[in-house]
């Protein structure tokens, strides 16, 4: 129907139709020449009247493009007849439901599995460490391991990551070590962030992983701006930004999505729709069919995937990345999943959702277990390797914590560095006076390197 309509317009429109058909064509998934629309110059029309409808009273070339008139008084429905389907590769028992996915070789698949298990192990132990009072805060990605690792595995290392806070696995995949994670959580000298942020606020320049802020969704427009830079520099890379269902209510999400579309930025907007924003269920968050439908509203290609299926996530990101880079366009991915842990160590989710619900998701929808079944089916994984892996991961995480705990804190001067490129005089003065205070009242202060 759509193609037919475009043909019809072409016949009717003459040269003006050419211009407008270009902007139509993006809806038909035709490949755009690089930078085509952005730098096109428009000529003033001389004979407005007839050109604006090409002589056809049934259509009008409004400023946004050609629109067909209808005598029908019909409102668009608020809800689709059927909800957008969710792309999946593996069923609950880890069996492929089709061969419609990007093949991955054994090494990658095994690394994916190992990283999923390591992430799960780290989350469990760090969470306990917080409960024991050894670190002040933690946030897990339990239930979202496939999203973390599946997406990370489909990206290139040059792709920049603009994370929320539940994507530690992406960093793990890229080679941030357990010691690096532990150092950040303990805010010690080994922390890239110099102990300034709460635990789980990682960042690593080396790994193209922009430092996390607690503020929800602020990173989305950043990812778009950075993607635009990649495009201008002609780089074979894209950016990806992660955010939650709650994050899509912010102004920054809408600004980011719209900017991405208008700037034709090679960015993957990855929504982890895990059903909850702290205690707020998605029904209090939005009334659309999730997030995926927002894409079309903004002129952004989008897909919904099963977030507990690592192969589906991998495939969607892999293909999205290709489109983003080769066609210079944003892609929105909505991964459906469930936040199987508490929001963070500050939260007790049994206050607002049934424990049975949590248990059900944990027991039947564990993305790690599903992926393992697939690996076993491939003959790439066995029970002995499982025992060894889990044992190894556990020992490594515990060791990282033990080490991190003994590493000294960053030195006092780091309070004043990095506020600006160099400390201005007010900060120099404040450092001096702080040092005097510390000398006079050492009992008031923890034992830092003064």
């Amino acid at each position: 129907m759509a193609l037919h309509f475009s043909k019809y317009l072409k016949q009717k429109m003459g040269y003006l139709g050419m211009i407008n058909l270009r902007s139509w064509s993006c809806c038909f998934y035709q490949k755009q020449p690089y930078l085509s629309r952005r730098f096109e110059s428009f000529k003033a029309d001389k004979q407005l009247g007839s050109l604006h409808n090409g002589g056809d009273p049934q259509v009008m070339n409004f400023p946004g493009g050609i629109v067909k008139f209808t005598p029908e008084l019909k409102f668009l429905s608020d809800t689709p007849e059927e909800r957008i389907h969710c792309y999946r590769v593996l069923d609950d028992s880890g069996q492929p439901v089709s061969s419609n996915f990007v093949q991955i070789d054994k090494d990658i698949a095994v690394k994916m599995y190992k990283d999923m298990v390591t992430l799960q192990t780290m989350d469990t132990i760090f969470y306990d460490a917080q409960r024991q009072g050894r670190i002040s805060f933690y946030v897990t990605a339990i239930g979202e391991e496939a999203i973390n690792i599946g997406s990370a595995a489909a990206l290139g290392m040059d792709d920049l990551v603009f994370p929320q806070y539940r994507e530690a696995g992406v960093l793990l995949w890229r080679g941030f070590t357990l010691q690096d994670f532990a150092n950040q959580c303990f805010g010690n000298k080994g922390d890239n962030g110099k102990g300034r942020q709460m635990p789980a606020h990682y960042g690593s320049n080396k790994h193209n992983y922009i430092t996390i802020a607690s503020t929800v969704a602020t990173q989305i427009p950043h990812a778009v701006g950075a993607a635009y830079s990649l495009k201008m520099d002609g780089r074979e890379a894209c950016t990806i930004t992660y955010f939650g269902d709650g994050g899509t209510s912010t102004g920054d999400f809408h600004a980011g999505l719209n900017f991405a579309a208008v700037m034709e930025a090679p960015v993957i907007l990855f929504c982890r729709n895990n059903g909850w924003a702290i205690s707020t269920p998605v029904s209090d968050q939005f009334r659309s069919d999730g997030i995926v439908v927002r894409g079309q509203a903004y002129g952004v290609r989008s897909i919904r995937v099963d977030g507990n299926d690592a192969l589906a996530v991998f495939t969607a990101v892999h293909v999205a990345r290709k489109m983003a880079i080769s066609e210079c366009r944003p892609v929105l991915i909505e991964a459906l999943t469930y936040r199987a842990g508490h929001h963070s160590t500050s939260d007790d989710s049994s206050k607002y959702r049934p424990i049975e619900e949590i248990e059900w998701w944990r027991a039947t929808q564990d993305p790690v277990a599903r992926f393992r079944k697939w690996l076993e089916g491939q003959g790439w994984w066995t029970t002995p390797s499982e025992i060894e892996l889990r044992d190894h991961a556990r020992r490594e995480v515990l060791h990282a914590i033990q080490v991190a705990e003994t590493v000294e804190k960053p030195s006092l001067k780091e309070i004043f560095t990095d506020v600006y490129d160099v400390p201005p005089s007010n900060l120099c003065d404040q450092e001096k006076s702080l040092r005097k205070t510390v000398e006079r009242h050492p009992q008031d202060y923890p034992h830092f390197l003064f």
Partner: protein
Amino acid sequence: MGCSLRRIGRLMGSIGGGRCCFRGLSTTCTEELKSPNDNKPINLFSAINQALHIALETDTRAYVFGEDVGFGGVFRCTTGLADRFGKRRVFNTPLCEQGIVGFAIGLAAMGNRAIAEIQFADYIFPAFDQIVNEAAKFRYRSGNQFNCGGLTIRAPYGAVGHGGHYHSQSPEAFFCHVPGIKVVIPRSPQQAKGLLLSCIRDPNPVVFFEPKWLYRLAVEEVPDEDYMLPLSEAEVIREGSDITLVGWGAQLSIMQQACVEAEKDGVSCELIDLKTLIPWDKETVEASVNKTGRLLVSHEAPITGGFGAEISASIVERCFLRLEAPVARVCGLDTPFPLVFEPFYMPTKNKEYIDEGIYLWKKEEEPASVLIVMSHFTLHLEVTISALAGQLAPDTIKVMGTSGKQQLTILVDTGSTHSFLDPTTAKKLGCVVHHNTNGGYCGRWT
């Protein structure tokens, strides 16, 4: 991230050298509230909760909403409200601060009491435009045809021991720069209940910052009944004669400790809770400074551009001739709020008491500082400064100010390890030297 306060005690024990006990203080009752017998000791979040119950009960056009408000809020301030008043009056909003405040303005403009919660003051900035350009100007720009006076925005603010950049900030000064809104900060449960009810019922939009450190820690008797405490009235919560201390919110308990410490050394401090930051009660502060001759302001927010600067400037304008010392500000550092460095960042008791002001009243055998008063400074200024600089490490010389036209006062900190100014040398340089052994800055400006 919802930050629970459950663990503060333990954490503070380890990082803060037991500072938690200072925070636990709740301040004294106002006279008029002491009567009823059925007062129960409750904490600050429960006091807020009581106020919200009363607000909803006494006005059917009152609404309470914000992120996670439905289940009671991440700090439990809205517990039980949705059950009691229904989900149409107490509800979760989507995660969007600009939406929350914008929606609240519209609701308030229709004659309702819109009580909006921003989960953390750190997350109020997406709503800044709505507050500054919309709420604050709604009345003025329409020639008083419209107003959103029923708007109250509640937000937990301030340090909490482990909040880092985004769960610790004190952004009050930004809002104090906005004519058209009020900014109110309570210090204790009793104050919180009475002030919040006043804010909700005030015919102007109000931003109400709640000291989250005190949500659980501050416990005091709070009358069960519906009561309101006046806005724009500061309160002298401790009387004294040597110096006036002004603060608000959680900082007051730190300041109170400083007062107690100072008292041991014979320094009598007057402590004022400002409560309403704009429009603020200059008269009470002015009267106090006219009595004591000295002022110290303290807040957690960074010192530069903080509300302390406004107080300082106003009091210098009003009390210049009465001031015996420069106004001191003991505040947060000019840095983002740093997690592991929190104890260093904070305007602590010892910074306040010893280092930044009150110290000078402390009687000591050895003068820790020498005050030099030079006559005819215009003639001698350059010569003297450079001569002093020859004797001392430059950072120990602090020009304290000038008095009228004749004198320059220089405070030389001889307690520093790098230098020592021998008073004889100073005299040789043409200075009148006062030791600080007899209290204060040794005499008045003349």
